[in-house]
Every structure is written in structure tokens, then in C-alpha cells.
């Protein structure tokens, strides 16, 4: 039986939906730009507070709405991260949204709706619900990409549209196979007690559908083009919020389905090859790039490969899920600081080419240092969260006998040193003078600075969230 009291469990998405509608409406009544942003941020903060309160006073897992959603610590943890990341993006890109987006209330409202979709993605335990919420989270993104004013915006949006619908189709095909064999759409009822080829096939389709969204190679083709053509707030959201939601969903699906004691050797080998391909394609692709946005797009592909390592380990032991969750949260925090400082730099130089970074440190030391910490974290240098994430993910891999995959991952991360250090060289070493063509707002640096502090704190003392992440995964 559904009761109205169950609504309390989805209070934060509800608040966000109302905020989204309120933002749309208030545009008719006021011309003051700050009110729109202020109300959006208020909604986000309230829903974050609600989630935090729910997290603190959490008692037991609740299956709600006819077992289509589940309310657990895993959802709350991911939701808090997602809402905070989105608030940080909105806060930092305030200036950008006000000045460079023509339909700003629609922009914010769509972003909030996509966030709501992502929250339901994490909660969902039923394939139909998962499908609906995935659509809710990705459809607004298509429109948001098209908001960009660059010449590549429409191309980027169209590519994303085609591939998103295509991937949804593949995802649904996988669901059909699984439904055909097990007769159930609910994750709770699907427990693989034997290796059934149809189920494996279904899982592979399901995974490919997700892989599009997570930009895992070889389904990453849209990523560089979309990153290049999208407005920066959306690029940031795609590489932080979207990643958290997508990997959280993968963690839930993989840890629910594989709760039996059979070894899925073939599936593990398949996923390992995909993961290796993703790291390698991402890193080698990034070496060739001359455009900063494209470079970080390829770096995203490589990092998706690293995160997949943790997901593969999850098939064998459930507790490995905490490594991926830590990695993806750490990666989101890192990328937040990278993209925010990147936007600051782009505002200054009016260019996205790598050469435009030359000599940045001499004229803008603060943003250079913040950017450099982000890059070092992506590279996985000790004392940053990126390093801890890699150590955890690879330790989960070795723990589950995936030593070759771990070696491949570690070798890949030193290949990535080549292009990450190349960026540092441009910023710190180059003797050329930085060409400043525009001005920028300090909000980018401020928010990036806060996330850089998080990068360092979590890198030096990961136990700060790691123990609660272990807790959260144990409660799945």
C-alpha cells in the first residue's frame, strides 16, 4: 500500500521540482536577475539540508512507492553530493548565466529538473523507474547544451540527442532480456542463481546503454564534441553531477544483481577489456588534443575507465563499491575545481587552446595554483584525493584477482602524466607572456578554491568520508 507519508522520503526532489517551477514563474514578475539565482540556490540549499537531516537521523532502509524506489543511506549520500555539486556550479557560474545565457530562468529550471531526474536514478530499484528517471535526467541536458552560443552548440546538442536516445534503446533491450528470463522488473527480485546466457546478454546491453551516458570507450565519441560545444556550466555538470549519478546507478545495479556466489568470469573479462580500452583511448586521445575542453573530455573518458575498475571488482565483492563511490565523489570535486578555474582562465584569455595557458602563473598565480592542484589530483599525485581514489580502486581490483587490470590502470595513469604535466609546463615553466583579452569574475576562483581544499583534505585524510562511504555501501 502506498501511503502519503511516503512522500517525506522524496522530500528533497519535491523541493527541487517546486524550486524549478518557481524559478520559471518568477521570471514573469521580476526583471532582476539575482532573484532567479537566489531562489534557485535557496531551493538547492533547503533540499540539501533536508537530505543531510535525513542522513543524520537515518533509521532503516525503506522500500517506497510499490517497491519502485528505495530510500537508503546510499541514496542520501549520493544525493547530498549531487545537490551540493549543482549548487556550487550555479553559484560559481552566476556571472556566466546572467550575461551569456538568453533564457536564464529556463536554463536554471531545466538544470534543476535534470538534477531531480538524477536523484530518482539513484533511488530507483525498478527498471521502468530507472528508465524514466534516466530520461528525466538526460532530456533537459540536450536542451541545455543547445543554449550555448558557440558555432558547435547545435551540433553538440544534436549528437547528444541522437546518442542519448540510441543508448536508451539499447538499455531497454537489455531490460527486455532480463525481464524475459526472470519475469521481474524489480532489482530486488532479480538474483542470479545460475549463469544464463540471456541474462548475461541482457546485462551487457544494459551496461552498454549506461556506458554511453558515462562516456566509457568505445561509446565515448560524443564526449569531446559535446564538451567543446556546450556552455561551461553544462560541461561541468556533465563531468561531475552526471558522473556521480551514473556511477551510483551502476553501483546499485551491480551490487543488487550479483549478490550470489557464482563467478561471472566472461562478464568480468568483457568489462575489463572495456575498462582498459576506456583508459587507453582516453589518455592517448588526450595527448593529441590542442583544445582544453576536448583534452578534459578525453581525460573524463580515461577516468571513467578507472572508475569502471571498481565496478568490476564490485561483481565479486560488494564492499568494493565504496572504492568507486569514493573515486567518483573525489573526481567530481576535483573536476569542479578544474572546470571552474578553466572557465576563469577562458574568460581571461578568450581562448580554449592549450597555448593560451602560457605564462599564466606569472600574471595570475592564485588561479594557476588552484588549477594545478586539480590537474595533480587528476594525475593522482599523493596528498590529493585523486591519488587516494586510484589507490582504493586498484586495491579493490587486486583484492579480487584483477591484477592485470590494475597494472594496466597504473601504467595508464603514468601515461596521463605526459599531457597533465604538459599543462603544468605551459602554466608554470613557459617563458612566454600570458595574453589577457578579457576580465573574469572572482566567484569561479572562490568556489574552485573551496573544492581544492576538499581535494587536499580528502587526499590527506580520506577517512573523513571513507568510513561513512563503507557504511553506506554496507547498507545497500
Amino acid at each position, binding site marked *: 500500500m502506498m501511503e502519503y507519508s511516503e512522500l517525506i522520503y522524496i522530500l528533497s526532489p519535491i523541493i527541487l521540482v517546486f524550486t524549478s517551477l518557481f524559478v520559471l514563474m518568477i521570471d514573469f514578475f521580476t526583471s532582476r536577475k539575482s532573484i532567479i539565482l537566489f531562489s534557485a540556490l535557496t531551493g538547492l540549499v533547503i533540499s540539501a539540508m533536508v537530505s543531510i537531516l535525513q542522513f543524520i537521523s537515518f533509521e532503516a532502509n525503506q522500500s517506497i512507492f510499490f517497491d519502485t524506489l528505495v530510500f537508503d543511506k546510499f541514496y542520501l549520500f549520493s544525493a547530498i553530493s549531487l545537490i551540493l555539486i549543482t549548487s556550487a556550479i550555479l553559484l560559481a557560474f552566476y556571472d556566466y548565466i546572467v550575461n551569456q545565457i538568453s533564457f536564464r530562468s529556463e536554463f536554471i529550471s531545466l538544470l534543476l529538473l535534470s538534477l531531480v531526474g538524477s536523484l530518482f536514478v539513484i533511488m530507483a530499484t525498478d527498471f521502468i523507474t530507472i528508465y524514466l528517471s534516466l530520461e528525466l535526467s538526460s532530456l533537459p541536458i540536450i536542451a541545455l547544451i543547445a543554449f550555448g552560443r558557440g558555432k558547435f552548440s547545435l551540433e553538440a546538442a544534436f549528437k547528444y540527442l541522437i546518442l542519448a536516445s540510441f543508448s536508451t534503446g539499447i538499455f531497454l533491450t537489455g531490460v527486455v532480456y532480463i525481464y524475459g528470463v526472470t519475469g521481474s522488473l524489480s532489482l530486488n527480485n532479480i538474483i542470479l542463481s545460475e549463469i544464463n546466457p540471456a541474462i548475461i546478454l541482457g546485462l551487457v546491453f544494459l551496461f552498454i546503454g549506461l556506458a554511453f551516458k558515462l562516456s566509457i570507450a568505445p561509446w565515448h565519441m560524443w564526449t569531446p564534441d559535446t564538451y567543446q560545444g556546450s556552455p561551461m556550466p553544462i560541461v561541468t555538470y556533465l563531468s561531475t553531477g552526471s558522473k556521480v549519478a551514473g556511477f551510483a546507478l551502476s553501483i546499485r545495479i551491480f551490487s543488487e544483481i550479483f549478490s550470489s556466489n557464482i563467478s561471472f568470469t566472461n562478464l568480468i573479462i568483457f568489462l575489463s577489456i572495456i575498462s582498459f580500452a576506456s583508459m587507453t583511448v582516453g589518455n592517448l586521445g588526450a595527448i593529441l588534443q590542442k583544445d582544453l575542453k576536448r583534452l578534459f573530455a578525453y581525460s573524463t573518458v580515461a577516468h571513467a575507465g578507472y572508475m569502471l575498475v571498481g565496478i568490476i571488482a564490485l561483481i565479486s565483492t560488494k*564492499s568494493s563499491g565504496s572504492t568507486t563511490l569514493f573515486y567518483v565523489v573525489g573526481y567530481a570535486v576535483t573536476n569542479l575545481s578544474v572546470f571552474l578555474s578553466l572557465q576563469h582562465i577562458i574568460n581571461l584569455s578568450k581562448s580554449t587552446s592549450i597555448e593560451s595557458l602560457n605564462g599564466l602563473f606569472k600574471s595570475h598565480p592564485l588561479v594557476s595554483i588552484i588549477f594545478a592542484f586539480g590537474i595533480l589530483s587528476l594525475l593522482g599525485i*599523493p596528498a590529493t584525493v585523486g591519488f587516494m581514489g586510484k589507490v582504493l580502486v586498484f586495491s579493490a581490483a*587486486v583484492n579480487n584477482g584483477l591484477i592485470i587490470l590494475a597494472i594496466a590502470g597504473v*601504467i595508464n595513469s603514468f601515461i596521463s602524466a605526459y599531457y597533465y604535466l604538459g599543462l603544468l609546463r605551459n602554466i608554470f615553466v613557459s617563458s612566454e607572456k600570458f595574453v589577457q583579452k578579457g576580465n573574469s569574475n572572482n566567484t569561479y576562483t572562490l568556489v574552485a578554491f573551496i573544492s581544492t581544499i576538499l581535494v587536499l583534505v580528502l587526499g590527506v585524510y580520506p*577517512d573523513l568520508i571513507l568510513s561513512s562511504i563503507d557504511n553506506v555501501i554496507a547498507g545497500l
Partner: protein
Amino acid sequence: MINYLVTITIFFPALTAIFLLLLKDKNKIVFTSIFSSVITFVFSLFLFLTYDKNLGGIQYIDHFKWIDSINIKSSYLVGIDGFSAPLVLLTGLLSLVACMASWRIEKRVKEYFIWILLLETSVLGVFTSLDLLLFFVFFEFELIPMYMLISIWGSGRKEYSATKFVIFTLAGGAFMLIAILALFSSASVTNLSMVSIPEIGILGIPELIAGQKLVIPASIIFIFFFIAFAVKLPLWPLHNWLPDAHTDAPTAVSIMLAGVLLKMAGYGLFRINLGFFQETLGFQIFDYTNLLVLLGTISIIYGAIVTLRQTDLKRLIAYSSISHMGYVLLGFSAMTNDQNYSYYSLNGSAMQMFTHGTITGLSFLTVGLIYDRTHTRDINKLGALTRKMPMVALFFMISGLASLGLPGFSGFVSEIMIFLGTYKIFPVYTIISAFGVVLAAAYILWMTQRALFGENKLKSDDKTYDFNSLKDASMFDLLPAFIITIPIILIGIWPNIFIDFFDLGIKEIIR
């Protein structure tokens, strides 16, 4: 015993680096950095002198919980034992010398000293951390300061050399990380402590993996660790990065690189490769001694032969480092189950790390002084420098003679100990390696003869420098050279001060 003294020693340079951010005046920055390195040196000297040799074991332990997850457990565990105490002292000493040698730096002074101090922190961390993951963190962290120092303040193809250095070391580090994770994933390993500390109830990896089955065969884990340290040592054929990094690095960085960074690898070989793999199942380090001694001998002879051909002073010393670090491996590989012989060679090997650190530090320091004045390191353009700068030449001679193993200097002590120990076990290899000493005499004497004595070979139309207006180094320039000469001569005549320590440390590593 004073609590947290090791932690303070490690992080004092890093805290100074943060404090430097607040300073603006160049002189204040230089003064603060030198003052900080003096304090750190005093700390390290204090640790060295107050280490209780009668008690032995690990002392000055600081232990906190650090990461406590299902997937990895690690703690902040630092302390010193007989093996690491001299190396901590060496780091304190050479960092002091490096800071003092940098006082003339003009370009981006503040950043320069920040990186030097961070480098010191990370090296001190490597020598004192007793937790494997913590060790790895410090071992890798050193890359960023080194990359910046070489690529910004270097000369020549500095960016190329810096990138090469980082890529080589990261590749080695990649193998080490896998080895660490493989160790941790083994069922019997519950914590990552590198040694057993009975006082606080910690069982170290050597005990935990003794006779146990590991996730991957112990021999592979051994090789992974070995590759990481072979890159850093550097060992033929992985030595390629060293000459470039040395040649293009600024003086102080060369001192740090040759003096202490290479020793991190030797330290790792002793602490990890020797410490862990004596009682492992199916494979012991003793099975590989033939391979190790072969690699060591090749490094000695190859390094020495290549050194003979060098005309750039810095490159010459860099290649001689490869040869001299080969002795470390030669002495290291003579460990056997029969402990009477191996103590000689292992002690000699550890001593070689210390003495090579001081001797090469002095060499790079004096080459730096010569380069500052003549703007060239090409032997074909130097000559007769004794006439114009006698003091610099004197110190250069001291470093050269100590390096070729003249009795009375520290190099002799360590080399004779290594040969004494290895001769009984690997007579052929020892005889071959002894030719390395002959070659060393050849290249050192040839270099000093051409660069310091004879006639000046600068052509009259070459405007690199003006021979007649050359001046000797000032007192302040010579002070670090003087400081670093003290241990070279002290060990030469009274080696026991360090042998006692290394002996104590090695007896605990060999069980």
C-alpha cells in the same frame, strides 16, 4: 624520549614553505629558508645523537590511525631505527647545503625555496615512514618539486629532462603501487607496517607474509619493488634519465638528487626487498643474488666506461654516480644466509649510500661554483683553475679523491667493506668490479688534471669567460663545501660512528 619529534622534523620544512608565502623581501626569504634548514638539520642531528644504540629497534615512534576502510588499512607510522637515522642526518645535512648553495638564485626566489623545502619534507618522510602506503606517498610526492625545480630553474633541455625524470619515476612507482596492493590483498596481511614493533603491538609485513601464500607469487612482488628502486637507484639499463636530469638541474637540485634522492632507492632495497623477502613462501631474495650481483657489476663497469668519455663536468659526475650506486647493489647482493660475510658487504653498501651522498654533493657543489664563474662546464674550455680559484679547486680535489676511493676519505671505507664482504661469495664479480675503482681513478684524475691543472685551454676568441678576471669563491660560497667536507674526512678516519648504526639497523632487517 620526546614525542612527535620525528613528525616535527619531517614537516618543519613544509611549514616553513607555507610561511614563505607570506614573505615578500628576497633576503628575508633566503634567510628564512636557510634558517629553517639549519633547524631541521639540528633536529636530525639530535635524532641521530639521541638514538639509543643499546636499546636498538625503532625509536621515536609516532603512530596514528590514518585510513581505515575495508579496502585498505593504513596508519601514520613514523620512527627511526639504526638504518634510517644516518640517512635522516644525511638529508638534513644536504638540504642545509642545498639551501646555502642557492643564496645567489635570482629567478622566482620564493617559489624556488618553497619547492626545495617541500622536497626536503618528502625525502625525510621516505626515510622515516614505516607504513608502506605512507612510504609510497612520500616517495611519489617528491616528483612534483623535482619537476618544477628542474624545469623552471634548470638549464639546457630542462623541460625534456624534467619530463623524462617524472615519467621514469612514475613508471617505477606504478610497479611499486601494484606490489603494495598485492601485498595488502594477501589474506595474511592485516596492516601495512614495514617492520614489527613489539612495543605498540604491531606485527610487520615481514612476519605477516613469512611462509604464507600471497595473491601473486612473491617473486613477482619482489621484482615489482625491485624495478621501482632500480629506476631510482639508477641501475643499468634503467639509468637513462639520470644524466639528463643532473646536467640540466640547478646546482642545489643536483646535490639533492645525487645526495639523497638516489638513496631512497637504496633504502627501499634494504627495507623492503631485503626485509620482506627472506622467509616468503616459494621464493627468497637469496635465490636472486646472482641476478642482482650481475646487474650491480654491469652498472659499475658500464657507468665507469661511459664516464670516461664525458667532457661535461656535471654529466661526468652523473655517470660516475651510476657506477658508484652500482657498488651499493654489489654489496647488497652479497647477502646470504651466512651472516658473518654479509654484514661486511651490507654495512659497506649502506655506508656507500651515505658516503656517496656527501661526496657527490661536494662534487656538484664545486662544479656549480666553477660554472657560476666560468659559465661553462666543458672540460675542453677549462684548465689551470687552481691558479685563479685555489679554494674551489681544493674542495673539488677532495671530492674527486674521495670519490676514487683514496684511503683517508670516506669513499675508501665503504668500498673496501663491500669488496671484503663480496669477495668470499662472488670472487669473479668482485674482481671485475674492482676494475671500476681503476676506471674511477682514470676518469677522476683525467678530469681534475684537465680542468684544474695544466694550461688554460680557452681559445683567445672565445668569450665564454675571461680567465684573467676569474676570482675565487667567497667565504659564504665555501661554507657549505666546508660543512660537507667534515663527514667525508670524519668517516675516512673514524668510520665506526656510522658503522655502528648501520650494523644495528641491518641486524634487525636480516632475521
